Each structure stands twice: as C-alpha cells, then as structure tokens.
C-alpha cells in the first residue's frame, strides 16, 4: 500500500509484559502510540539476553480497557473474539502475530477477519481451531474422581482451555462441587455452591480415594477393556482420535503410557 503511512514501522526493540491479557493489550497501546512495530513481544519480567533494547510494558487497566473497547468499535466483535481466543492458545509468537493482525485490522476494518485465506489471518484461525478442538476433546476426556463428595480432575492441555470448557462442566454438574486442575498452566476451575471461579494454583494435593471410588474405577476399566472388538484392533485409528498426550490423565489408558511399577 504505497502512499499510505503504515500504522507502525519495524523497530529494534523487544517488549516484555506480565503474561496477562491486559498486559498484552497495553503492548498494543504502546505500539500504536509510539508507532513502532517491536521485533518481538515476550512474556515474563526477566529481560532476555538480546542485542536489542528491551522495554517492560506494565499492565495498566485503563489503557487495556481503551484498547479492548476500540476493537469491536473500529474492527468488529468477531475480531475481539478471535484475539481473546488466540491469546489463550499455544501459537508460537502469538503476541506479535496478534499485534500485526490488529494493526492491519484497524486500517482495513472487520472484513479482514473474513479473509480466511490471508497469510496473516489463516494462522490465527488455525490456532483458534486447534484450541477449540482441544477444548472439545477435553469435554469428553476429563476424568473425575469422587473425593469426599467433590469431583476432582487433572488435565495437561497444550492450550489454556479452562475458560472454554467451564460453561460445559458447570451446566453438566450444576448440583455438584468440582475442580479441574490444569497442570500445564497452573490454573484451576473451581465450582462450589453454585459459583465457578478460575484460580491460579501451583500445586494441588489430592487425598487418597475411597473404596467406593476404586470400585467404580475398576468397573470403568473393565467396561473399556471389554467393549473393543478383537477382530478389529486398530491402534493407529485410536491414536488419531485420542492423541497419546491425553492418555496420562485418562484412567482407562494411563496404564498403557506408564506401565504399572
């Protein structure tokens, strides 16, 4: 686009921020106001060893709110949805890609989201698809065990899916109390007394499970081992549908990844 002044020009600077969504929005704010496109955006306060200048962008609620409000206003509601979802994904360099997307979208408007084949948009849509796909799989793959009347589960997803599966489990277990601990992202979804919360937790210690729980776990394993038809074994097909990285948290197949002993 010759003749049109770019919203930001490449600059030899690296932004660091605290990893929160507000922090990221402040990076967008910084980039727009200084008219510079950083070389990279990194999470964490520790400055990386680099030859470039490193600037820490502090999360500021007011600035973040301004950026957040500007997206549906100047681009579209769909753009805000896409940005929030991709921010929870495990896409490499997601912050920089999102910033580049936003800078273009401020210029081109909401139609950019509909350019499904665009080189800047397609990776974001792909990351969104993967995240939603993982969330869908986990709706089925989460295994709860009953610990003193409350249900507990551990997951180790690649993407930060807890916000995307919360609604499902709250509706499914609206009369129960439950917790899903995301070991990868050190977060937990806790639902008790009709209220759901997302908490930051480093570690959870689960008590020993009861005899009754052991019984149902054994029944489930027996069911799983009986339901397969011998003449049709197909390990590859099973792995395609249920990738091995989920197995460690799934009662019926965890023995296959960590043989007992």
């Amino acid at each position, binding site marked *: 686009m010759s003749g049109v002044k770019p919203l930001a020009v490449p600059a030899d600077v690296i932004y660091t921020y605290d990893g929160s969504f507000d922090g990221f929005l402040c990076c967008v704010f910084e980039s727009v106001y200084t008219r510079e496109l950083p070389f990279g955006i990194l999470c964490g306060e520790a400055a990386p060893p680099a030859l470039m200048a490193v600037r820490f962008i502090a999360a500021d609620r007011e600035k973040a709110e301004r950026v957040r409000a500007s997206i549906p206003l100047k681009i579209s509601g769909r753009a805000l949805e896409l940005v929030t979802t991709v921010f929870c994904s495990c896409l490499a360099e997601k912050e920089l890609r999102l910033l580049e997307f936003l800078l273009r979208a401020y210029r081109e408007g909401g139609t950019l989201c509909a350019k499904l*084949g665009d080189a800047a948009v397609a990776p974001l849509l792909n990351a969104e698809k993967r995240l939603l796909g993982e969330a869908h799989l986990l709706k089925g793959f989460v295994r709860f065990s009953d610990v003193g009347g409350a249900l507990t589960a551990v997951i180790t997803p690649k993407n930060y899916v807890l916000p995307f599966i919360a609604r499902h489990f709250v509706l499914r277990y609206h009369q129960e109390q439950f917790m899903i601990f995301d070991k990868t992202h050190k977060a937990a979804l806790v639902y008790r007394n009709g209220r759901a919360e997302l908490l930051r937790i480093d570690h959870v210690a689960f008590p020993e499970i009861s005899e009754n729980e052991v019984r149902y776990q054994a029944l489930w394993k027996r069911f799983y081992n009986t339901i397969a038809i011998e003449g049709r074994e197909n390990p590859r097909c099973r792995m395609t549908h249920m990738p091995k990285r989920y197995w460690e948290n799934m009662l019926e197949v965890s023995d296959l990844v960590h043989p007992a002993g």
Partner: protein
Amino acid sequence: MDLMEKLTILVAGAKYDAACTSSGADRPGKTVMAGCCHTFSADGRCVSLLKVLMTNYCVYDCKYCVNRASNDCRRTAFTPEELAGLTVEFYRRNYIEGLFLSSGVIRSPDYTMERIIQTLQLLRRRYDFRGYIHAKTIPGAAPELVRRLGLLADRLSVNVELPSERSLNLLAPNKKREAIFSPMKQIRLETEQNRQELVVYKKAPQFAPAGQATQMIIGASPETDYQIITLAAAMYGKYALKRVFYSAYIPAVADSLLPAPDVKPPLLREHRLYQADWLLRQYGFGAEEILSPETPNFNPYLDPKCNWAINNMHRFPVDVNAAGPETLLRVPGIGPTSARRIVAARRNGRLGVAELKRIGVVWKRAQYFTRTSDWPPNTRPDKRTAIRALIDSTVYAFGAEQISLFQDTPGIRPLPTARDVGTVAEAVEEAVLCLASSL
C-alpha cells in the same frame, strides 16, 4: 453374580452393535449438540455411551448373533436399579455421555421392553438424569410401549439387521420384516406429531428428540453394495432416519448359512459404505449417482466421491470463485467445511491457490478439478496423474486381504497384493495403470 461379572458379560454381548453416537439431543444441562466422545477403544471406535444389554437371555435364534438362544454361553441380567445406579455413577465421573441400552428378548418382546422402560424411568425420575439415552425398541413389542420408551429416550432405534427380507427370513427367522418397519414408521409419525405439539405447548414432553437410527450387518448375506445403499437412501427418505450404521459381520458363531468363521470381517467395504452414506446425507448425492445396477459394488481403490469425479470428468474443472456450494462439494478435496469457508472468503476478494491451501482445501486432490484466477497452468495433467493423487492410500493399511473381499468389479483386473509387489509405491503404480485403463 457380582456387578463386575454382569457388566463383563452384558458388555461383551452388546459390543457388536455399531449404532452408538450421542449427537442431536438438546436437553437442559446438555451443552454439546454434536456428539461427544469420551474415549476410544482399542478398535479405534468412539465410546460415548455406556453400551450394554439389559440381559443376554434371548428366546430368538438369529444365526449371526452371539446371544442367540442356541449359543451355549453364560447368561445374566441387570436389575433396573443396578443399571441405573451404574449409569449415574459413570456419568458423574465424566466417563460417558449417557446410556445405550439394548437387550436380548427375555420371555417376550413386551416383557423386555417393560424392563427397559423401568430402567429409564428410574434414571429420569429418581436420579433426574439429564444425559443421553439411546434405547433399542424390541421388534414385535406393543406400540404403546414404543411410545412410552420414546418419551424417556433421546434416540430410538430398530435394527433392520440384514439388507433384504430374504436374508432376514433365512438368518433371523423369528424377526419379521413387518415387526421391524412398523415401529420405525410409528416413531416417525410420533416424532412429527410431537413436533407440532411442541409448537403449541413448549413444555410438551419430547418424543425421541434425537430421532431414530438403525443398523445393518454387512457381509453375512449376499446383497450388493448398490442394494445396501439404495435401501439406506430409501430409509432416510421414508422413515426420516438420522443415521444408518453398517456393521461388518464378525463371525461370532459358526453356522452353515453364514460365512466360515475364519473369514475376515469386510472392514474396507464397511468403510466405503460409510463414505457413501456421508455422500447421501451431507453432500447431496443420490444413491444412483454413487453406484448403479451395472457397477453394483464399490471400487476398493477409490473412495465413492473420487470415483464419481473420475467418471464425470466433463463436469470439471469447477471455478471456485463462482461455483455454488453444492457444486464445490462435489470436488474431491473440498468438504462441507472448506466449501463453506470458500463461499465466505470469496466475498472479500478472489481466491488463488495459496488462499485455497490456507483455507484447508486438500490441494493434492483438488488441483485436478478446480479453476482459479491463477490455476490451472497451461498444460493439463493427464488422467493417470489425477488417479494417482486420488488413490485412497488407506487401502494399503487395510491390507490385500480386504481388497480381495470385494466382489469383482467389472473392468478391474485382479488387484496387486502385497505379495506380488515390493512396496506400497509399486502397488499404487500398478493400481493406477489398472484404473486408468478401465475407467
């Protein structure tokens, strides 16, 4: 007998029934409209429901069935309390999405249905169970019982079992064609009536909101693929079925009327039937476009959609920037999702090859059938190249044994087996030559 043993026997008796998904019901508290798989068993099939029999006692003697009366095996039955309790505990732990309940016929069809209804009533009333329930209606049961069952379950199904009346009479002498199709018809009528009631009164009890399904056994009787697909298409139309499931016959019991016990289940054929079924339901194909009386069986090497495309080369290439969605769907390499995305994306500018690839089109196959602003290049590839790209490589994963189960498709030479050729690449090359000369 303790619960563990009962579960083992009654699951083993139910596992051959394929009609098991959890899609389509919309209940309060149930948030996944599409099916939700909770695990995949060692045979690679989705497990979303607790698939069990109420009992494996059976007064019928269907030749192909493990639970036939004359088969000497251990028999047992769940009490409604046991089964309801088990379902609820499994559901709580997120092991399952619901219950898939079938049964052998104990005493009489009506008695069996009453046991099933009792279990479902316990679940829905006492436990306030909001999960999915798929129940089998027992052929020959009273219409009133079918109605009561439909008000408790999300989906009902009646198995047609075999693709023709002749085979049914031969292999399932106690089941009459009439006893299978009359509940199917009843379910369709009740569902339609219920839909009208729901318009008038939102809280009217729902009758089988996820519709009805059926399954048939493939390879136990001599019907051709064309007959099977035509029957499926007719049932989709006539009884508004949601799904027809195909189950490759696995020799469970020996009988002179059945294939020998050492015959392998026709898995590749079953795979092709499911592909064709998808074309009927999602791609707008008619049964007579997929197969015809002249070519009554599938081509083992090409999936039905590619096979159709190769035989209808005059309809291609399709201009992706102009063609309607139903035309796009016919292009090998473009499915419902990418067709939808193409239609959305082309409103904002013309699509080229790079865009199509990023949208998710399988370019390896689609390149021979599409036209875009920067495609095709001047020289068009010959038919042989196109066929090479379309050959279904999963065929070789199924193995030569599976291919040999196909009845001879006219024009196709006996196909190369793993023994004849060294590598998969060689096998593909030979199949390409074979197909190019015959299609």
